[in-house]
């Protein structure tokens, strides 16, 4: 058989494969586009100055805004991050850098994977039992704690993976120069992994920003603007859930605006963290 002759069966195979891949890509992007367009077309019209300036009125026909929920969500994300990111990062460092010669890392890794797969409603109930009941009332602290609980395994596992990607030759060079393990981690490994670790952190933030179930049992929600995490605490997701499942058209419309704002917040946080880390990495060490 001459080498240059085409095998029609192989050519067909190749074309079918290409068509399948292209079709799936178009399908996914199409659905994503549809959701975005739909969200914007309804949500954008419902978003007004009042949405950010006013709190809920309690009047179903003239529901006011969601200022309290925007502020509440930002605070909840911030508090949860303050608790969850350090815990997750340190666990990730342990698994990657210290966990090689000890007995603990195997079980820790297993438990972390299990925790990452726990349904968020379970986290909510856990938060109720472990935080709300002992503290005596629904509160922002309990909500932040439940969200942090979701963050830790995500941050731990992604940062472990990213630390592992740092070449071992860096660690050896550093050790040969007389660096202690912690010096090697802080000065060489962590800076080298920083860019990708941030991606994992942002995944975790995006994930908790959209959580509703854990907050229903912990932060509960509130109609009022508050910055005191000891009280029941408002959040966009719970408020959207309440409005969207209610019977009043004005509130449902406001729920659309709430979702749009929530997605925008996640997007802005994402981009700004990326910009900051880029700048830090570019400046001379």
């Amino acid at each position, binding site marked *: 058989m001459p080498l240059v002759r085409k095998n029609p069966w192989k050519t067909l195979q190749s074309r079918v494969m290409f068509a399948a891949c292209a079709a799936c890509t178009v399908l996914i992007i199409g659905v994503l586009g549809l959701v975005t367009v739909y969200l914007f077309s309804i949500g954008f019209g419902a978003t007004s100055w009042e949405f950010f300036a006013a709190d809920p009125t309690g009047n179903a026909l003239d529901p006011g805004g969601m200022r309290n929920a925007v502020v509440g969500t930002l605070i909840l994300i911030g508090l949860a991050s303050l608790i969850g990111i350090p815990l997750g990062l340190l666990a990730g460092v342990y698994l990657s850098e210290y966990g090689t010669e000890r007995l603990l890392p195997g079980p820790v890794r297993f438990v972390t994977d299990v925790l990452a797969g726990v349904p968020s409603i379970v986290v909510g109930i856990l938060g109720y039992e472990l935080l709300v009941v002992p503290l005596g009332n629904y509160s922002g602290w309990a909500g932040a704690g439940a969200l942090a609980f979701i963050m830790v395994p995500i941050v731990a596992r992604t940062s472990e993976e990213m630390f592992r990607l740092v070449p071992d030759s*860096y660690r050896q060079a550093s050790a*040969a*120069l*007389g*660096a*202690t393990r912690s010096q090697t981690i802080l*000065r060489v490994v962590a800076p*080298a992994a920083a860019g990708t670790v941030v991606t994992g952190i942002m995944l975790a933030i995006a994930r908790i920003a959209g959580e509703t179930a854990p907050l229903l049992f912990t932060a509960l929600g509130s109609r009022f603007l508050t910055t005191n995490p000891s009280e029941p605490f408002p959040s966009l997701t719970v408020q959207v859930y309440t409005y969207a499942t209610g019977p009043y058209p004005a509130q449902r419309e406001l729920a659309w605006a709430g979702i749009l704002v929530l997605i925008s917040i996640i997007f802005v946080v994402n981009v700004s963290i990326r910009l900051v880390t880029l700048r830090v990495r570019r400046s*001379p060490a």
Partner: protein
Amino acid sequence: MSALPARTIGAMEVRAPHPPVPTAPAQGPAGPSVLDAIRQGHAHTAAVHESLRSEQAVIEAREFSLWYGKRRALYAISMIVARGKVTALIGPSGCGKSTLLRSINRLNDLVEGVRIEGSIVLHGVPVYAPGVDVIGLRKRTGMVFQKPNPFPMSIRENVIYALRINGERRRAVLDEACENSLRAVALWDEVKDRLRHSALGMSGGQQQRLCIARAIVAEPEVLLLDEPCSALDPVATLRIEELIRELSQRYTILIVTHNMQQAARVSDYTAFMYLGRLVEYGSTADVYQNPRLRETEQYVTGRFG
């Protein structure tokens, strides 16, 4: 010679102790091969030349053995490294050259399941004694690796890394040390205008010289070079070899190399190793031109059997 435990090499069960195999003179007729005997697990008494007796030892290994888990990598190595000289470790892959090198600064500690016997003494301090400050030990030795491995930082930060971890903060001190080290490796003129650029943008040869600068910035007592040219092109290799000759005026250097010509060019003493044993050790001129063992001659001339 210490008694060797019974063990399996290949498919063959060998029992110890074995009588040492007498070493045949290099020019003698084909007798029992020393390398065959080693392959069969016999003990071998290294042929160490008298020229080493007059040298002052900076490093001394005494009956040093090392195991990676159950696999034995070094067999009772006894040798000195002469002060102010360049000593080359040669031998086929897997003969334990790099392992021996990494035993001196205890970099093998990073590997799981390493076990040792015997001792290595650096400037009178037994490096494997309990309670030895490993960090301090590593600060007294500089190491350069097979592949250039600059940190993903600026050129300047790479050079002064050892000082930074020692807590040095004075800018003038750091600047001066940086310049001196870079001059010592003949890199200063090439990079003085881009000290704050990433070291990863340099060529392979430049990176390796940077790694040498990084290794000498804290004035170590010995330099351990682990095949420093194996990832470099011939021109860059030549520059590193020139550099090794220059640095030998200030440092004791121990270099592992796969390249026999390189060992001949840069070293004062050469140690030939095979399967974890020291086979022959003497001045480079003797080992290359007048070896005691026929096997050494065959190896250094590339007729390895």
